[in-house]
Structures are given as structure tokens and as C-alpha cells.
């Protein structure tokens, strides 16, 4: 058990025991870590305001096999600008949940860390749903799970409509599909493929309708579940 120091984001918090929390962190150089922070829920704890969702923190912790132990922590930023608007909070928490579920423990994944930092910077300035979806797609790409959305997995056509097949990680066209999978139009397939291959800062050029957003979320969630189940 060694003592380590790192900075990163609070992805998740769960109450544990009478006054402790189990906090999931995305730390630069360390990746996703889960740690127990003792006594944090007590009013007299110095760390009460430090560990809140989406906060950027510096932590000193005893590294252990599964559950680290927080020794000290300090707040770098509470990202208040992200937390002023319900839509922005929901977007940021959706990405945090996506990372929490997808990232393996103790893998540094610094590219993902930098991606999340860029996303939070965008969210601070008021980014749209497209930035959130782009960040989720890029996370999949960085972890080696980029879905094929621009062309049919079987015949290679770029003309839809398509169906997304979570187990195959891509789309099949109407000629190859059968009746399984999640339907998506050519337009949505192209928009998602574009978001998955361009910097998230450029996601503003794409505008997804509420129906397309819901469809994209259905696709991403189904694919996430498949990856988690298989991984």
C-alpha cells in the first residue's frame, strides 16, 4: 500500500456507513479509482465541501487493490458554472456516469481524462447535447470500442436507413439488417459518425432534434450495456 497524490474529477459518490463516503474519481495519471473517505458526511469534516459530483479535486490517498483510502483532499474547482443550469448539469452527469460505468479501474487512460477536461471546459461555456454525445462517442473510441456508424458492417453502403446492432458495434443497412437492432436514419448515422471523428469543440455545427437525441442515447446506452456485459 503506497501513498499517492493525484488530481481529477469526482464522478460518483455513495454514502457508506454512518459518516463515510465511497467516492469514484477520474484522476490524471491514475485513471478511475474508488476510494473511501472517512467521516466526510459529518458537519465538522474539513472535506465536506470537497467531495461533490463534478468537483475537481486534489487527493492524497493510500493506494490499495480495489478501494483506496483518502488521506487528504483539497478543492481545485467546484465547476460552479457547470452547476448553474439543469440541462448542463444533466449533460455533465450523464458523461460522468458513462465514464464511471465504462472505464476499468486503475488504468491511467489519460486521453479520456483530457477529453473529460475539455468537455467540462465546454460545459462551463454552455455546450449543447451534441457535445455530450460527441464526448461519449470519443470515450468509446479512446477505449477501442468506436462503433461503425458511417457504413453498413456487411455490405459497406453508406445509404440507410440503418439499424444499430449493439453486439456487433455498428450499423446494418435495410438490405442486410433483418429486423433486429435500433433503427436510425441515414442523417443520424452520418451525424453520429461525424461527431465520433471530429474534435468535440466542433460539435456545435451538428444539430440533433429531440427525437434524434433520444435515438442517439438509446444507441449509446445499448452499446454501453453490451460493452460492460462483454468486458
Amino acid at each position, binding site marked *: 500500500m503506497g501513498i499517492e497524490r493525484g488530481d481529477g474529477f469526482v464522478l460518483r459518490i455513495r454514502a457508506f*456507513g454512518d459518516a463515510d463516503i465511497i467516492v469514484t474519481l477520474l484522476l490524471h495519471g491514475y485513471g478511475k479509482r474508488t476510494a473511501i473517505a472517512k467521516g466526510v458526511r459529518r458537519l*465538522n469534516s*474539513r472535506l465536506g465541501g470537497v467531495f*461533490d459530483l463534478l468537483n475537481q479535486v486534489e487527493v492524497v490517498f493510500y493506494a490499495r487493490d480495489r478501494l483506496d483510502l483518502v488521506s487528504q483532499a483539497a478543492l481545485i474547482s467546484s465547476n460552479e458554472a457547470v452547476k448553474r443550469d439543469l440541462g448542463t448539469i444533466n449533460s455533465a452527469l*450523464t458523461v460522468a*456516469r458513462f465514464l464511471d460505468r465504462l472505464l476499468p479501474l486503475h488504468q491511467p487512460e489519460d486521453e479520456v481524462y483530457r477529453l473529460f477536461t475539455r468537455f467540462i471546459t465546454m460545459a462551463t461555456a454552455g455546450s449543447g447535447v451534441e457535445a455530450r454525445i460527441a464526448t461519449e462517442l470519443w470515450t468509446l473510441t479512446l477505449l477501442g470500442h468506436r462503433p461503425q456508424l458511417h457504413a453498413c458492417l456487411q455490405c459497406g453502403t453508406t445509404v440507410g436507413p440503418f439499424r444499430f446492432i449493439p453486439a456487433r458495434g455498428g450499423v446494418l443497412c435495410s438490405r442486410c439488417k433483418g429486423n433486429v437492432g435500433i433503427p436510425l436514419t441515414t442523417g443520424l448515422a452520418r451525424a453520429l459518425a461525424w461527431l465520433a471523428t471530429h474534435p468535440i469543440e466542433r460539435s456545435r455545427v451538428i444539430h440533433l432534434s429531440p427525437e434524434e437525441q433520444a435515438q442517439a442515447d438509446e444507441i449509446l446506452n445499448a452499446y454501453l450495456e453490451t460493452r460492460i456485459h462483454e468486458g
Partner: protein
Amino acid sequence: MIAPLEELIDRLRALPGIGRKSAERIAFHLLSASAEEATGLATAITRVKTDVHRCRRCYNFATGDLCEICANPNRDQETICVVGHPWEIAKIERTGEYHGLYHVLGGLISPMDEVGAADLTIAALVNRVKTEGTTEVILALEPKLEGEITAMHIVSLLKPLGVKISQIAQGIPVGRDLEFADEVTLSRALRGRIDL
């Protein structure tokens, strides 16, 4: 260890805040206690499960149709204090500072745990405000992001009804040194400062 004792220890260990040692201590205490004491505890646990349910008005714990607070005509009927959990009511009651009614949400909105507004009693709160002549709603939710999300959602629903909405102050606990306060707590304390 003999099976009934082991089972008791296992069941006690499943309770929040009780580890193996505490569970063993309680189990051995019960073993050496009188039959009346042990049976009394068992009966109390059974009664809690059979006799206590949620107040149909505010979702606090109750033994009748309404909880003691809702059934008390001397309470201020125009003010509702919104809390996440029933046990927070007891804390507020002990202050002696509040004399209105309560509304228990049953938790907080938490996208991380897939708890949405529909999983809470927010719709019932809005209905109460519409039908009970409420003039003020006080939000006493935990000062963390889930509490803020829940508060924002409630405000968006209640603002159009023209009711006064306030939130309990957030900041430095009494008896604490300022030097140990983190920036978030201190900035909220400053934002919530009062005129003297």
C-alpha cells in the same frame, strides 16, 4: 458458533453502522438479557414494520392516516418545509424554530443512480401547493449537487404558481473555525449573508 447465534450476528451486521464486533456484542447482550427484554425488542421491531406507514399528505412516517404534524391544527398550515427523508424532520423539529408542515420527497433526483423526478413525491408536493393554500415552500435539501438539481426542478414547477420559495441557509457550521472552511462552503456563506 451455534447456528441461531450466528444468524442473529449476521442479521445485526446487515444493519447500517454495525460491524462484526458490535454485532457480536449486541448478540451476546441479548443472549444474557431477560426473556422480557429480548421479546420486547423483537415486538418493537415487528410493530414498526406492521404499524408504521407513510402519511398520506406529507409522506412522513405515521401510525394513522395522517402523521402527528399534519394532524395538528396548531401548525402553520400555509408553510411547507421540503425534506429528502423522514428522519430529517426530527432534526428540524428539535430546533423548535419551525412550526409549519413538511413534505418528504423520498430522496433526491440523482441521474447517477437513475433516480428521476417521477421516482419522488414532487408531483404530490405541487398538488399540495395548488390545493392547500400554501404561501411559502422552504427547501431543506442536502447541500450537494443532487440536492441542487432537485431544488432547481422544484423551483421550476412551483415558480409559476406564485408561491414564495426559500432555501435553508448554507455555510459555516456553528463552532467551526473559518480557516478550515473550504471555498465552496465559504462562498455560499458569503452569498447567504444576512443584514445585522
